[in-house]
């Protein structure tokens, strides 16, 4: 059985995907935005997740609201 290094595999795939994306947009222009909305229930759940992320980030200090229209973010996740 072939063993795959997950990080190496994802890294390689991401770079290939970025190159493809850039070439595609150069040739065909910006991809049209999706006009397919999420269903209402899924949409609410995803909003609640976004809200939790903000609350968590503010609570653990990875983002800090300094004054209105000014935030401070940690440099890296380390």
């Amino acid at each position: 059985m072939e063993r795959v290094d997950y990080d190496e595999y994802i890294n390689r795939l991401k770079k290939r995907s970025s190159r493809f994306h850039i070439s595609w947009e150069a040739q065909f222009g910006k991809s049209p935005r999706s006009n397919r909305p999420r269903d209402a229930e899924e949409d609410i759940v995803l909003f609640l997740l976004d809200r939790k992320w903000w609350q968590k980030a503010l609570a653990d200090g990875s983002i800090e609201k300094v004054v209105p229209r000014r935030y401070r973010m940690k440099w890296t996740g380390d």
Partner: protein
Amino acid sequence: MDRRLMDLLDDLKRERNSLRRALGVLAVLTEALKPQGIKPILVGGRALEFYTLGGYATKDIDLVVSGRERVKPVLEEMGFSRRFGERHWYHEELDVAIEIPDEILAGSSEKIVTVEIEGMEVFVISIEDLVVDRLAAAKFWESRSDAQWAAKLLALHMNDIDLEYLKKAARERHVEDVLAEALKQAEVYIDAAEGQELFPQDRPFET
């Protein structure tokens, strides 16, 4: 570009979080452009990704820069390259793609949000102008998902929004009708969040 900025870029190669890596790169670029008085402003999907902290995900960094030709040598110095015919500057090791689609910000420069990162700054289009941008896409490109994102932005940041400015900007872009709908949808999101907070598992110390 000074050694410190190059070292910071090297650090970012190990950052796994794509939003954090993108904002870090932008902070370095903004710092490197400071001596020339150039102020890049983050717009588009990556700005939306910042305001939703990754809820919305995109591949590009779209910037508005007045005098974009002067950015080219700095991007090259940072290790970005652009192939013939392509609009994006790409850095393979960082896996970050930058496009500068405009020189003039569609919105207010006074309302721009600043993000401090490691003593540097990143400038982001205001929530209000980003909402109006998404509402314009919803109305004129019939993109219903953009209407949902506009409503989510409103609900997430309702307390920080200058409603008077938002309504004025919406009128100027002829999207006041879709703004009214987005504000109603934002109320639905806020109600859902308040309802969810009443679930006992979220408040373990209350009886």
